[in-house]
């Protein structure tokens, strides 16, 4: 990260080179800019649209579903060629998606799914699987402690209460560790996906929970905040308390490489290139898979050291 000031405005003009009326116009309704992850996601989409010669209409819903619906509606009105969006929540899209269908504008979902029973409303869903991420985190824990018989005390830093990643990651994690009674969640609290909250909640955990073996944070940022709290309490993160997080942002990878985090499950925001490919295919009338999972992996400390230099964000 740094001082680079590129933003959407640049995208429109640079794409002008493509010329001609046949240029694809895509309307993209983003959730908001609530986290670094999200911003990287936005950036990836803007950049790859420019590269692919697609004219991008972008709107930011500021975390509100109604704003997203409005934006999609206005794309329909503006007669864009294709609509893509990351749903704020899963439910409640049928009406506006039907409008899009009526206007014969194909729709692609990114990042999160919608729970509509009518699968014809969108062409495909491109994104990560939050439940799976939670499972991966849990699986690591199970593997890590498979030789130990002692109870394992876990504290959990949840994402924003009610948000899909928080709900799903929690559920996936629970599903895996729930199988073994030695895993015990000693405390669980929301850290709103932010470092500051992560640190504050962790400080409280450190005092109220006598023995903490493992910290599971729903994203890197909360984990990074918690690391500061752990260090402040005179403990060594990664050793005294093992830490597993999700996302793999650059700062998180750095901490992983430094040995302060033990394991990170990747949740990549860089959906742009895949999205543009899919869009072109859809508009060309090709058949696409209804569910495209982003290529994601997991990182151990060693893997992080190797991957770090190429990490874009």
């Amino acid at each position: 990260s740094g001082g680079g000031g590129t933003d959407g405005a640049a995208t429109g003009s640079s794409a002008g080179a493509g010329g001609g009326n046949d240029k694809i116009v895509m309307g993209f309704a983003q959730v908001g800019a609530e986290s670094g992850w999200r911003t990287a996601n936005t950036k990836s989409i803007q950049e790859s649209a420019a590269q692919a010669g697609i004219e991008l209409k972008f709107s930011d819903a500021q975390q509100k579903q109604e704003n997203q619906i409005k934006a999609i509606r206005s794309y329909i009105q503006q007669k864009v060629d294709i609509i893509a969006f990351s749903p704020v929540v899963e439910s409640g899209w049928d009406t506006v998606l039907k409008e899009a269908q009526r206007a014969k504008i194909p729709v692609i979902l990114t990042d999160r799914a919608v729970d509509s029973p009518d699968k014809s409303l969108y062409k495909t869903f491109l994104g990560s699987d939050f439940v799976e991420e939670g499972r991966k985190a849990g699986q690591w824990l199970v593997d890590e402690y498979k030789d130990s018989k002692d109870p394992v005390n876990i504290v959990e830093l949840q994402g924003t209460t009610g948000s899909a990643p928080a709900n799903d990651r929690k559920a996936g994690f629970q599903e895996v560790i729930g199988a073994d009674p030695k895993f015990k969640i000693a405390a669980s609290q929301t850290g709103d996906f932010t470092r500051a909250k992560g640190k504050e909640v962790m400080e409280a955990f450190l005092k109220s929970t006598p023995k903490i073996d493992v910290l599971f944070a729903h994203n890197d940022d909360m984990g990074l905040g918690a690391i500061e709290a752990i260090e402040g309490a005179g403990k060594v993160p990664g050793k005294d308390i093992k830490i597993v997080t999700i996302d793999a942002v650059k700062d998180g990878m750095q901490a992983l490489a430094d040995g302060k985090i033990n394991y990170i499950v990747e949740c990549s925001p860089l959906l742009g290139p895949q999205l543009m490919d899919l869009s072109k295919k859809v508009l060309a009338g090709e058949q696409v898979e209804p569910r495209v999972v982003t290529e994601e992996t997991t990182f151990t400390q060693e893997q992080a050291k190797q991957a770090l230099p190429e990490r874009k964000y």
Partner: protein
Amino acid sequence: MSRLLGHRLFWPSAVLAALLLVNVVFTNGFLNVQMKDGHLYGSLIDIVRFGAPLILVALGMTLVIATGGIDLSVGSVVAIAGALACLRISLLGDQNSVGGVLGAIGLALALSLVLGLWNGVLVTAAGIQPIIATLILMVAGRGLAQLITDGQIITINSSPYKLIGGGYWLTLPFGIIIVAAVLALAAFLTRRLALGLLIESVGGNAKASRLAGISARGVLLTVYAFCGLCAGIAGLMISSNVSSADGNNAGLWIELDAILAVVIGGTSLAGGRFSLGGTVLGALVIQTLTTTIYSIGVPPETTLLFKALVVTIVCLLQSPAFRAKVLHGRRRRPSASARPVPEEKKASVSA
């Protein structure tokens, strides 16, 4: 005794004490304060340390509210100040250079002051209602903060900067020292100098104040600028605490907590009389509540219910009408209250 019970700050203090007591039960050694590496360490210290930004913002807010206004933009100013300081520091060749860090801090605080003044100008010169005037900056300011950070989290590694929110000085967390200094400054300006009288006068009766020769404009500009500055300092503290600037989330919704602190502290939102001590107390109640929620393990889904409950209890206990009607079983308040209740604002007895 009845004087004590009737004191404005008795009941918030009692609630604070009760909350602390709950913690004592749930957390071993809650009241312990130990020396660790020459720092004071313990839950009580933590409460003040984490509460420090809120106290700061609430102090500025107190003065604004006392003039009859409100400042919704503090959260955005918090984000902007942290973002700007961290951006400057991240661009430094040597992030540990004291001069460079001071420069960054100075710049961020100057900008906060200017933003506060901007609010003040909208309220005084343009005559826009404070809530809307500051709503403008609340919305745009968040964008500004994100613009500065490019929507990412700027992580820095600067030990001088770390001092502000995460460091210690003379065994005390530095944040506590800053709060004490700002509190002293605010108390000096308002109680030692006559700013407080003029603020209360403008907030109590703007028309009459004007006729008494008070320039509301000057008072309001000072107050909004001070509020901006406080928010700026809080912003530095928050970002320094985690050595990073998060333009998206820093200070989000802090305005609500700050207003809550002010009101728990006994200052009326209608303007007029204010109490800095009360505000500090109010902020501590809120912070202790937050800590309590974490440490007694309230599930995240019920956090808000718990908060609603405690806020309601504090306010009810604080209300003389409630105490008279419910606690003392009287149907109505026996007489006009001893509190200086402004004529207009007094919702008098009636059944």
